[in-house]
């Protein structure tokens, strides 16, 4: 790692510490040290009922991760599948696109009331909101990738004898993979944000719930500790997907 990057983090912590000490309201604006202590406390404290064994911090993280994983997988499958269909058949496009274009600008957060009405609290509404958030970027990027398959690839494959199924699986789909992967990466980021939002209101477990809970008990250090965890987990997921992408798409960078 380049040294300046470590300086960046250290500098941020120092400024934060000084600012917190100057403000001198530890209940509202905790110092980094207080946050680290809170992290340690949260690691030890018993977790939500189904994950008592993992401790409060890790237990809630596991619950949140599980929700985001399920929601994201459903979004990935449905988004890529519909994206292929829309990208491939004009009729499917005409049939689906108008509805999608109207649904797309509605922020997933605007669905929270309905999600709670339909699904109650906890796992289901969270998964629903994650799906909503992740679905559209995945869908749109898949369509874009399918559309931008170079005409030459298709023509050359046709002259070599490919039928329409082979054109799809052996040409359009691999050609669209970079775009699909970008969609998945954006999708998981938005899905993670939607998850936290869903847990703030529609849940009694998960990282989102945890930070809201410690807001109500006026323990800002624990709220910040939860926020920090959300940031770290989101970053790890992003890096993981990026690594997968580089592995799958190594042919883009070989030279």
């Amino acid at each position, binding site marked *: 790692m380049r040294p300046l990057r470590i300086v960046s983090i250290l500098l941020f912590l120092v400024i934060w510490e000084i600012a917190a000490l100057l403000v001198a309201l530890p209940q509202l604006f905790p110092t980094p040290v207080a946050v680290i202590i809170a992290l340690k406390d949260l690691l030890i404290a018993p977790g939500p009922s189904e994950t008592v064994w993992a401790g409060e911090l890790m237990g809630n993280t596991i619950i949140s991760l599980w929700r985001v994983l399920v929601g994201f997988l459903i979004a990935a499958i449905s988004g890529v599948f519909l994206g292929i269909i829309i990208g491939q058949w004009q009729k499917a496009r005409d049939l689906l696109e108008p509805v999608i274009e109207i649904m797309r600008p509605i922020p997933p957060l605007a669905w929270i009331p309905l999600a709670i009405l339909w699904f109650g609290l906890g796992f289901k509404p969270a998964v629903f909101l994650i799906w909503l958030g992740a679905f559209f970027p995945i869908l749109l990027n898949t369509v874009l990738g399918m559309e931008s398959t170079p005409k030459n690839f298709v*023509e*050359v*494959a046709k*002259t*070599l*004898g*490919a039928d329409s199924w082979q054109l799809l699986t052996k*040409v359009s789909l691999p050609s669209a993979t970079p775009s699909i992967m970008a969609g998945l990466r954006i999708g998981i980021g938005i899905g993670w944000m939607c998850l936290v939002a869903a847990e703030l209101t529609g849940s009694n477990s998960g990282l989102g719930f945890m930070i809201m809970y410690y807001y109500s008990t006026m323990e800002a250090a624990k709220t910040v500790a939860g926020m920090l965890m959300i940031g770290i987990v989101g970053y790890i997921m992003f890096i993981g997907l990026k690594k997968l992408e580089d592995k799958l798409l190594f*042919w883009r960078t070989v030279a």
Partner: protein
Amino acid sequence: MSTAKLLIENVSKSFYDRKRSREVEVLRNFTLEVSASEFVCMVGPSGCGKTTLLKIVAGLETASNGAAYIDDKKVTGPGPERGLVFQDFALFPWRNVKDNVIFGPEVLKAPLKERLGTAGKYIKLVGLSGNEHKYPGELSGGMKQRVAIARALANEPEVLLMDEPFGSLDAQTRFLMQNELLHIWNQDRKAIVFVTHNVEEAVYLAERVIIMTACPGSIKQVVNIGLTYPRHIADHGFITLREKITASIVEEVKII
């Protein structure tokens, strides 16, 4: 009927041009016979429908009038007996050299063993042995074009259609590739229809050079190149033919 391998009979093609919102005729009554092992080059002003003609023969576009025939069988779509090589190679970047070459046999569901044999044979023929596992991103322009040629040959087509295949190569690589192609043609003796706007290239390669008129393209003149292979671009006979063909094309360009 004719005895030609490839017969292009009375082909005309019009497009609807959206920008100018009118029909544009790019080909008019184009007729040409190519025999089984013949090397034919087509030259002409740009936009005279050379590429369109190749695509009609390849079965990627349909003629507005007339048709192409292979062994008296009308062309109705793409088919493995006709191979097409593009100027920009159109290699699949996610497939390595071997897997690019194998694409045709693969989609035609040839047995795996046969596929690998075919791939090996044509990779060797184009001089790329040892590069089977490289990806297109790792190859130079000349190597890419070799892969594209090997890929087209791997289906063992009877007619090889080449659309300015060496147009984007530097002069030296181009010269190498021209000799390589003649070498391949000597071994494989396929019919080759080769589109170029480089007159010297046409005279260097072809047994017959077809000069096309400006848009709408039709045959202006057919020049038989009687020179023996290997040809030398500085020979008197070569230069005479080159100048004659160039003059004929310039005439067409001036008309526009």
